[in-house]
Structure formats: structure tokens, C-alpha cells
């Protein structure tokens, strides 16, 4: 397997506080890769760096062999790197269907065509609906996203993200705030969609991590503490001490 995403010496400093310190991360093509670590370890910050929402203080980011360190957020998205947010991010005034559709339209290249009818968007309806079904939101297709409960907003966000058919999917705590049944469903969904693409996710639900992920990187205080598959990592005493606690061993 080749490496799809690679960081070299990635570092982020906030006014003297180093949140991410010289991280060398390598995500293999086709893998489901988890980033775990105690709170404040720098996981979200790494995501923000990868999606260009933050500028690295030092280090380089390579995507598919290409240096993307200085690209704009929208360009990296168009390269096929798409993220979901830790705090739910939807378009509250648009319906669930429209939320997904706008992503499908983005995938199709977006449009500055102010002279065309918006009927042209309806060609995305079928695909959008099937995505909503995948996350069990079909019955809410015409509900405005702002009115959905928190958990459903998260589900909608995932559907929207999937609409972009990203090559590399960055999921920041996709399960947070979800009920058990949803967790199972989303996990299955992630597994399904991970076929043929690469997933990098931050997740605290170790059950999910154990179940889904091929490779795990453990961050602590901005540095990589351990790396490997679940079995290896979960036995690492440093990881147990810093993160998992005794309950999970």
C-alpha cells in the first residue's frame, strides 16, 4: 500500500504554546486510520492543519506525493480531502435534502451560473435521498437542518461529507453525541464507505476504534506517543496510563 497523506515535522504553536510538535504522520491509502489521545493532545489541531483551517508553524504536508502545505481550504477540499467538524456543522436554514444537495453540487464543480434555473439542482435529488437513507434521515429530508436534534445534525453532517465522495475523509469524533443504535449504524456506514477510500478519524469511543481501524496513532501533548494496530497500541503501558485507563485493558 502506498502512502496517501504524509506530514513531516508538522508543528503548530499558539502564542508560545506548542499544541502540535513535530508530528510525522503517514496515512496509508485505503486504510482507516485513527487518531486518538487524551483531551488537548492536539487531534483537532492536526485536523485543522490538514484542512488548512490553520497554518502550520513549521513542517510540510504531502498529499498524494504533492506538497499541499500552502493550499487554500477550498482547494484542498477540491483535491478530495474533506472533513467533518467536531461541533456539528450544517446549513440550518436549508432542508436536510438541500444540505446534501449543496455538497453534491460542490462535487459536481459548483456553479456561478446565476442565469440558470435552480431546477438543474434537482438532478442530485435521488443521490441525496439515498445518502440520507444511509444515515437514517430520509424521513427528515424536508425538515430544516436547524430543527434537527443534535444527534441527527451529526448524522446529516456525515451524509453531507460523504456526498463529496472524498478520497480522504477526515472525521472528527463522528460518534460524539450519538445514541447506541446510531453508533452501530454509523460505524457500519463508515466501514462501507471506507472501501476504496481513506479515512482518518478522531474518536474516543474505543469500541468503535477497535472495530473499525487498521492503524492507530496516539497523540499526547502534541507528540506521537505510539502507533500501530489496536492490539499493539492498547497494550502499550504508556497509552494505558495516558489515555485508556484501566477499564479497557
Amino acid at each position, binding site marked *: 500500500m502506498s502512502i496517501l497523506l504524509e506530514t513531516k515535522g508538522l508543528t503548530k504553536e*499558539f502564542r508560545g*504554546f506548542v499544541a502540535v510538535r513535530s508530528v510525522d504522520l503517514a496515512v496509508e491509502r485505503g486504510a482507516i486510520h485513527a487518531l*486518538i*489521545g*487524551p*483531551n*488537548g*493532545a*492536539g487531534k*483537532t489541531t492536526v485536523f485543522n492543519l490538514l484542512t488548512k483551517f490553520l497554518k502550520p508553524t513549521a513542517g510540510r504536508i504531502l498529499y498524494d506525493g504533492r506538497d499541499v502545505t500552502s493550499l487554500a481550504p477550498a482547494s484542498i477540499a477540491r483535491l478530495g480531502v474533506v472533513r467533518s467538524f*467536531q*461541533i456539528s456543522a450544517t446549513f440550518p436554514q436549508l432542508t436536510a435534502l438541500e444540505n446534501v444537495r449543496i455538497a453534491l453540487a460542490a462535487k459536481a464543480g459548483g456553479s456561478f451560473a446565476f442565469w440558470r434555473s435552480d431546477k438543474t439542482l434537482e438532478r442530485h435529488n435521488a443521490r441525496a435521498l439515498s445518502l440520507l437513507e444511509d444515515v437514517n434521515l430520509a424521513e427528515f429530508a424536508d425538515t430544516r437542518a436547524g*430543527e*434537527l*436534534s*443534535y*444527534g*441527527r445534525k451529526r448524522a446529516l453532517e456525515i451524509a453531507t461529507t460523504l456526498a463529496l465522495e472524498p478520497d480522504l475523509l477526515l472525521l472528527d*469524533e463522528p460518534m*460524539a*453525541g*450519538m*445514541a*447506541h*443504535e*446510531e453508533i452501530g449504524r454509523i460505524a457500519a456506514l463508515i466501514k462501507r464507505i471506507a472501501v476504496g477510500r481513506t479515512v482518518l478519524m478522531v474518536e*474516543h469511543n*474505543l469500541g468503535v476504534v477497535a472495530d473499525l481501524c487498521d492503524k492507530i496513532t496516539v497523540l499526547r501533548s502534541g507528540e506521537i506517543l505510539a502507533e500501530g494496530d489496536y492490539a499493539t497500541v492498547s497494550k502499550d503501558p504508556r497509552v494505558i496510563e*495516558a*489515555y*485508556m*485507563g*484501566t*477499564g*479497557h485493558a
Partner: protein
Amino acid sequence: MSTEPVLQIRDLEAWYGESHVLHGMEFDVRAGEVVALIGRNGAGKTTTLRAITGIVKKRAGSVKIDGTEAIKLRSDKIAKLGLGYVPEERGIFATLSVRENLLLPPAVKPNGMTEAQIYELFPRLQERARSQGTKLSGGEQQMLAIARVLRTGARLLLLDEPSEGLAPVIVQHIGRIICSLRDQGFTIVLVEQNFRFAATCADRFVVVEHGKVVDQVASADMDAKSGELAAYLGV
């Protein structure tokens, strides 16, 4: 243990604009109890807490806190009855430093924790005391949100998904804190998705569905009723 409920909820209704979300919630919480509200996404757990605190303004029915009717009161007055609220998405203020966040809520009852006691409980907060509140990581923010209400002297705490987004070690840590709070005589209403976590210290589970209480299960009966509970939660 006194039998007079600290929190008595009767026939509580609540609306967001036109949409009717709570349809007659009823439950009691007695002093020193930890009660967990559980239920599926969108069942109305958060809304229940928000209706108790008065954040959701359109509401009807009866909410008695220590015997005082609170349904007609403004949220700041309700807080003064001795209520501490930790909201769903933590509600840390970005324009305040960590320490300012911590010191923000005014005391509502005497004998709240001191700053030193708080730092003892959450050493991480002391390290980051001067940084901007929202620059903390998710977990740190959760600690801050809990720490914040401990200072006020409130004895009745409403915690909305305190384990959400937290690393297992931290979850265990928070669990221990909640248990110790109970042991110190705090009364706690907990909203949780993480059933396992809730089970560590809840005395009783209140199951919410479609804005109503559909069942109440004491911790002691847990094992017997786990099947039913699982059904409610769709686990």
C-alpha cells in the same frame, strides 16, 4: 435522607417556537440523589434541562426547586434557587480567559468550592488559567464547565452529557468526580448517552421518549431490567 424532593417536576411542557417538544414530563429528584435521564436522540432530554433552568422560555406546568415554584421565574432567578447548569456544548466563553470563565458565575449559595479546591480537582485548568476559554481542548472545556458550577455553591447540578467527546481516562475521572460529588451531598441530574458511564454512579434512571417519562428504573433493579432499558435505547 430527607424525602422532600429537591426538584419536583409536574406536567412540564415546552416549546421551541411553534414546535411542541415536551409533553408533560414528570419526575422527582430527592436530595443527594443522582438521577440519569436517558433516551434516544431528540427525545427531549436536553430540552428538559433547559426548561428547568428557564433557558427555554416557552414552558408550562410546574417545576419546584426546594419547594419554590420556578415555572414563572426568569433564568437568573432560578439559578439563585441553588441550581448549577452544565450545558450540552459546554458553553465556554471565548472572550473570557479560563480563569474568568471559572470565576464567572456568581455564588448562588454559601459554601461553594474555592478556587484552590477546584485546581486541586482539575490541575490542568490551573496550567491553562490564562489562556482563552475556547482554546482549551474539548475535554478541558468539559472540565471547566463542571468546575465552573462547583464554585457557585449550587447543590443541585444539571449536567448535559458530561462524558461527550472525552477520552476514556477523562471519562473515568469525571465519573469519579460525579460520584464524589454525590457523596458530598450534591443532587445531580445527568443526561447521558453513555449508558455504561451513567451506570457508574446513578441511583435511578428516568427514561424519556417523545418528551415524556416512560419509565423509571432504580439502579438496584438495573440487572433485572437491562433488557427493557436496552429496548428503550435501541442498543
